[in-house]
């Protein structure tokens, strides 16, 4: 088991490294000159200014050299010349071209907001989705089941950003129930934190729970038809225990697989949510960094962050597998 986790960690690290290398290659060897829009930013761009910028950005050095410098910064302090000279503490992700702030500090600052949105939203859609799916599966073929499926199809037909926008327009703008949706740190004021996040959570939870409800329903119907569920019923186990202890336990494995993939996606892409509800999180930050001039250190940081989240989520799913399924654990 331990060997397995170590093997997975090694391959996860490899994925992250390859992603960052690819990113560097794209930036430095891309079709446009990254120094040019930066040069245009403050006043007129002179050839001298461009030359200095090109030198500062390291565009005169090889990509490999630049990557080496960047990678070394992850473990030791680094001096960065960009107009002025900045000291960037390890682990250093560089200096934002736009704000001249340390990228790592900005990332750490914006992480809680994004994490709060994603974890809260995911919890809501997982719990309600599985719950509704289980109920629908148990009541399979009844009007309740049909109603649940119909409603879920209807909601999934509405694009997510429309749901989010509608929620924001009505609940925040018009009725002013949740007027302030900007991020309040959990440690400072838990109530304000939760209150501000209700709308984003609801938006994510509502739209995604429908998909989970239908998926869970399918998995539960399959599980309820399994021989071992019949065995449990034949033992005299109560229906509730049969459904939860026997059927749901088996159905949860594929649901977790999907959930793991979804969660990574959600966390690395809370762009819409943060944009609509004007939350200062990583998604919004990533979008801003992509506007011309491209804020490469921020782009690199956000992409790296996304890559790490994806591989970690996958790793967690695999470990969960082995916790749930002894056949995986003991083989």
């Amino acid at each position, binding site marked *: 088991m331990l*060997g397995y986790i170590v093997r997975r960690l090694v391959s996860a690290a490899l994925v992250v490294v390859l992603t960052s290398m690819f990113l560097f290659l794209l930036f430095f060897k891309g079709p446009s000159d990254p120094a040019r829009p930066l040069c245009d930013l403050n006043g007129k761009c002179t050839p001298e200014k461009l030359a200095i910028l090109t030198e500062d950005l390291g565009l005169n050095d090889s990509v490999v050299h630049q990557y080496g410098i960047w990678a070394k910064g992850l473990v030791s302090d680094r001096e960065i010349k960009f107009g002025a000279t900045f000291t960037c503490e390890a682990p250093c992700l560089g200096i934002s071209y736009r704000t001249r702030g340390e990228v790592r500090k900005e990332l750490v600052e914006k992480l809680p907001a994004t994490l709060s949105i994603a974890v809260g939203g995911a919890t809501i859609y997982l719990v309600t989705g599985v719950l509704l799916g289980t109920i629908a599966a148990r009541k399979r073929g009844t009007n309740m089941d049909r109603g649940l499926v119909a409603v879920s199809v209807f909601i999934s037909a509405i694009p997510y950003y429309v749901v989010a926008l509608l929620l924001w327009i009505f609940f925040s703008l018009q009725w002013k129930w949740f007027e302030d949706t900007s991020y309040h740190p959990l440690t400072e004021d838990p109530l304000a934190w939760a209150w501000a996040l209700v709308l984003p959570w609801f938006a994510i939870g509502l739209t995604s729970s429908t998909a989970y409800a239908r998926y869970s329903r399918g998995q539960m119907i399959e599980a309820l038809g399994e021989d071992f569920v019949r065995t449990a019923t034949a033992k005299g186990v109560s229906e509730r225990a049969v459904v939860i202890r026997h059927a749901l336990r088996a159905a949860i494995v594929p649901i977790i697989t999907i959930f793991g993939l979804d969660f990574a996606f959600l966390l690395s892409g809370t762009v819409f949510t943060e944009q609509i509800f004007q939350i200062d999180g990583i998604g919004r930050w990533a979008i801003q960094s992509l506007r011309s001039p491209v804020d490469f250190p921020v782009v690199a940081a956000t992409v790296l962050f996304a890559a790490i989240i994806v591989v970690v989520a996958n790793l967690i799913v695999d470990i969960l597998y082995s916790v749930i399924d002894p056949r995986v654990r003991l083989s």
Partner: protein
Amino acid sequence: MSEVTHGLPDGAAEIELGDGLIDELADEAELLDADSSVLKPHAPTELDPSRPAILEADGLRMYFPVKSSGILRRTVAHVQAVDGVSFQVPAGGSLGLVGESGCGKSTTGRLITRLEKPTSGAIRFEGEDLAKLSKREMKPVRREVQMIFQDPYSSLNPRHTVGTIVGTPLQVHDVVPKKQVLSRVQELLEVVGLNPEHYNRYPNEFSGGQRQRIGIARALALQPKLLVADEPVSALDVSIQAQVINLLQDIQREFDVAFLFIAHDLAVVRHFCPEIAVMYLGKIVEIGDRESIYSAPRHPYTQALLSAVPDVRQASTGGRRERIRLEGDVPSPIDPPSGCRFRTRCPIAQEICAKHEPPLLQIGRRHKVACHFPGRLGQAPTEPLTARLLGVDAHGNPDAGASPSAEILEQRPGYADTWFDLDNKTFARA
């Protein structure tokens, strides 16, 4: 009345031998569905020793690696699924492979059809060693060796029509012009007792027995010389099993196909195969003609296996008959017992059994057994018969006085003209 009893309509059409063309089509689809009534009742499946071997497995081995769970996934052991199996299948004849789950009979079938590449050993098909052929070189041979699978539900693609399923091999191997594929498919459906009009239906529109017929039609499409049938009837209802067995026997007779018939049902194998090999934990423990295996088994495992088969006729005698109870489970093929692999469950095992693997000794004209104490049920010899041949004493310790007999110990497929007569303890000659 009597024709009806035998499931034959009056004037049943015949099949021309060889090219498989059907003279006349029987009119009633009902009767076609009922049984393979276009075929004549067959002569019994008897052994024809004069025919040459079409297939010869020689020392076939299949070891599957077992990886460690550490950081570096080293191969720490091997599953010895098939370990040194040798046999012959005569042209147009059939050899049955029996044994319990995990004995390696299915793996052997997959090796013969080269769905797996053997670790070592030879598979001589019409003299050519298939074990060494590459995938590309195997393609022409695949026409000659076809497989029938156990599960008629999962072995047919549900999205393809029966016509496509049966016709695909014809197109892949380019054996008939495109225009004639359909008529050939219909011929094949007719041969296996299905309505030829149903070529455009999907597998789910057929019952289990009919699906197995589709699988057989597909296997027959290329007019193979050898069919490997892996549990072809065990997923079917009993009344349907007999239909399919009869069909396979008819096909064998009409098209002169050889069968490697793999099954766990001893009665079915006995009915179908004039020669049978009994496998245990990757090895053949006894091989011989039907009479030897079923009426005069000399290996304690074969005897136990036969005595375990439930028998309908007990109802008339009342109560349960005595039988040899095998205790425990089959050991792991990763770490099989030393010496004789059956010794851990064998009622007559002695010291020598743990020390030396018994050779597959020929004890009759067409009968070989791998046991140190081969004998009739309840009359096993007290002294190991193989000790002298192995050059050891009765306890399996080296014996300077004895001289190992290389000739007898050489494990070759097929049978020799001399053998060791158990009753007289001497060599006999045909």
